[in-house]
């Protein structure tokens, strides 16, 4: 009997892929190769099959402990990781800052050591400070999966976005992807940049100049990893011929912080609406990482329209996270025979 049968995940007809042998952490996509991203996406398909069964449970991570450590409010990401862990039969424990010792002044370092001492195999972490997962990874033996850190990265979101693009459009290579919104603070946008560029997409970023990192407003050197990214401040230009339109959440405090004159003006200039979507490719899809501010960065008609794949993103999110949880615990094992 091979490993595949034992963990209960179906083999893939095309052979499947795996994560890098020895990968312990998923902190961002900057250290993923194209092959490794492909491997995760293929394993995601296998996980999707499990999710389509009438009894959604396989023993792959039986006896493993997954702790979700969330220092920021989150519904979809935390629930998605929790469900992913449970479908794989891991013991999942949720820790949020509201109900944890961090409220009593315990340092992140000591909290982390405590969780490790409880034999956490995987810690899935969300934190308002960029680099918090790197800090844990530096000090712990547990596997660390970044579920969003500050304005830095959100790799599982980017992977589920890429999986959804591939599912809907057949491939990522050569596709024109327009990312519209708060590029300056968006960890979703950043991780998607790394991932999409590695997969050969053509990426256009669109935002008012105040919501673009200041160094992106000057010409980037040739050797810069994002040198090929097009930046525009006109949403019509970004959407023109786009295969994928990805709207990012606008944090509502951007008006008070002086980045924008008003949400009203932002909405008039950048909202993804059906009129603007006519500029995109005929079969273009619309994505949003959620939660949405309908009427600000995306029009409800588009968000719930025929081109929207936002609900599929959520479903795929569980499968991607299953692939990641499985991947870090058994990095050298493909789900294929």
């Amino acid at each position: 009997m091979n490993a595949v049968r034992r963990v209960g995940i179906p083999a893939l007809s095309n052979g499947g892929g795996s994560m890098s042998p020895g990968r312990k952490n998923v902190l961002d996509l900057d250290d993923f190769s194209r092959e490794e991203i492909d491997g995760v996406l293929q394993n995601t398909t296998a996980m999707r099959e499990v999710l389509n069964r009438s009894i959604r449970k396989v023993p792959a991570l039986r006896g493993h402990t997954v702790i979700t450590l969330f220092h920021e409010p989150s519904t979809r990401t935390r629930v998605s990781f929790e469900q992913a862990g449970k479908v794989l039969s891991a013991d999942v424990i949720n820790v949020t800052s509201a109900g944890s010792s961090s409220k009593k002044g315990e340092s992140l370092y000591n909290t982390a050591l405590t969780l490790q001492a409880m034999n956490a195999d995987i810690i899935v972490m969300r934190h308002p400070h960029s680099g918090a997962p790197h800090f844990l990874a530096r000090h712990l033996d547990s596997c660390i999966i970044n579920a969003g850190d500050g304005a830095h990265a959100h790799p599982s979101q980017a992977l589920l976005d890429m999986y959804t693009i591939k599912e809907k459009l057949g491939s990522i290579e050569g596709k024109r992807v327009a990312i519209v919104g708060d590029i300056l603070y968006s960890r979703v946008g950043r991780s998607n940049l790394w991932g999409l560029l590695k997969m050969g997409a053509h990426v256009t970023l669109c935002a008012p100049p105040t919501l673009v990192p200041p160094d992106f407003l000057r010409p980037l050197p040739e050797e810069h990893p994002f040198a090929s990214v097009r930046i525009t401040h006109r949403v019509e230009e970004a959407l023109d011929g786009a295969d994928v339109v990805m709207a990012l959440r606008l944090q509502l405090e951007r008006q008070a912080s002086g980045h924008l004159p008003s949400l009203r003006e932002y909405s008039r200039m950048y909202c993804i609406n059906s009129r603007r979507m006519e500029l995109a490719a005929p079969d273009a899809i619309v994505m949003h990482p959620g939660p949405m501010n309908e009427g600000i960065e995306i029009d409800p008609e588009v968000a719930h329209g025929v081109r929207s794949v936002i609900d599929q993103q959520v479903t795929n999110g569980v499968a991607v996270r299953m692939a990641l949880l499985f991947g870090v615990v058994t990095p050298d094992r493909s789900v294929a025979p």
Partner: protein
Amino acid sequence: MSAAVKQVLIKGGRVIDPGSGLDEVADVLLADGSVKAVGQKLVAPEGAEVLKATGLIVAPGFVDLHCHLREPGFEDKETIATGTRAAAAGGFTTVCAMPNTNPPMDNASTIDYVMRKAAAEGAVRVLPIGCVTKGSAGRELAEMAEMADAGAIGFSDDGHPVADGALMRQALTYASAFGLPIIEHCEVPELAAGGQINEGWVATRLGVKGVPAVAEEQMVARDIALAELTGGWVHLAHVSTAGTADMVRRAKERGVRVTSEVTPHHLTLTEAAVLGYPLGGTGGGTGGGSQYDALTSDAYNTFAKVNPPLRSQFDVEAMIAALAEGVIDVIATDHAPHNRQDKLSTLNDAAFGISNLETALAAVLALVHTDAVTLTRLIESLTLGPAKLLGNRAPRGLGTLAKGAPADIALIDLDVEWVVEPEHFVSKGKNTPLAGATLKGRVVKTIFAGRVVFGPEQGKAS
């Protein structure tokens, strides 16, 4: 210093005394706490201790215009006793203590307290700096005249600028009565708000808020204009950008009373140190990765978080050039010791600062090894340069080996290679981005007031 202090003859070293232009193999005789003679083949008086210095540099003890001894109030980070011993270990025999203590040194009695404590417990000379404003709060002037009488050598709200331009004007005008500088931490609060590291690609890729160079430069421009207006003296603490160097150069050409200092880290490290790749070579930039490589779990290196932030390579080169040509007057350490927990955190939560006294010389010697700065200029910027800025607040001859100068000496081995091991620091602050780096050259012995305060004989002579 009692009469029991014996005479010391330092024999056969290469004596570099920027004050007299001396750079030759010679002997130095110290007696009764001062320099007695510098010359060839000096004969040891009876009972004198003879120190062989063959192959070593003999320089005046270093003078640090900017360090944080943390006492009173933050004795978990450093004390006057530990900080001055760290200074001695780095060749510093005079250190100027910043007033951001708790309570802050904003009146004559706290100045007096620190001076008494230093006289009783310090290993080297401590000269206090007083606050510009009461409680460093930036609202009302502190009692500068009384602090000057008590021994303050200048005034600073270091850690913060004097943000209110009208108040800064009054401070410069008021302090001109006693010829002391306002030492300004140049940073426009609104432009620096929330900033963790330098603004640029490293901050962008790490997803943390950057501090733009203009946050420093706007304040430098204002302070130069105010110094010009008032005739007061502004000393710019820890300058870090190419734009600042340009403005200081032009202001000096116009005769504005502006002086400035630069830290060892702003001369030798870039923002890339925050990425956490291993440091390569002697004291310099990153050896193990480029700013475009994938991050590792060593990224977000809190030990490289300092204010002002480590800047770009362009800025570092501008700092070196400005130091070499004298636009920047001196090297000051901004020694900022912190305890373990202060840095054992995310980048956002980590304290700003580097424990610097014990690596300062070795770090900047890299500039000499690469011929960017001459050895004489480097030593001048650590001795005569800062002593000049202290003027008559310093003992006569400080920072030189002139006859009658304080018997403060640093003996330097230029070529010894050593690995920085913070766990062996004398300072309580083990916070340095240089941990594990190999540096070339170090202070091997320090003499303060005629007594060995650091080196193999440490303890025996006192």
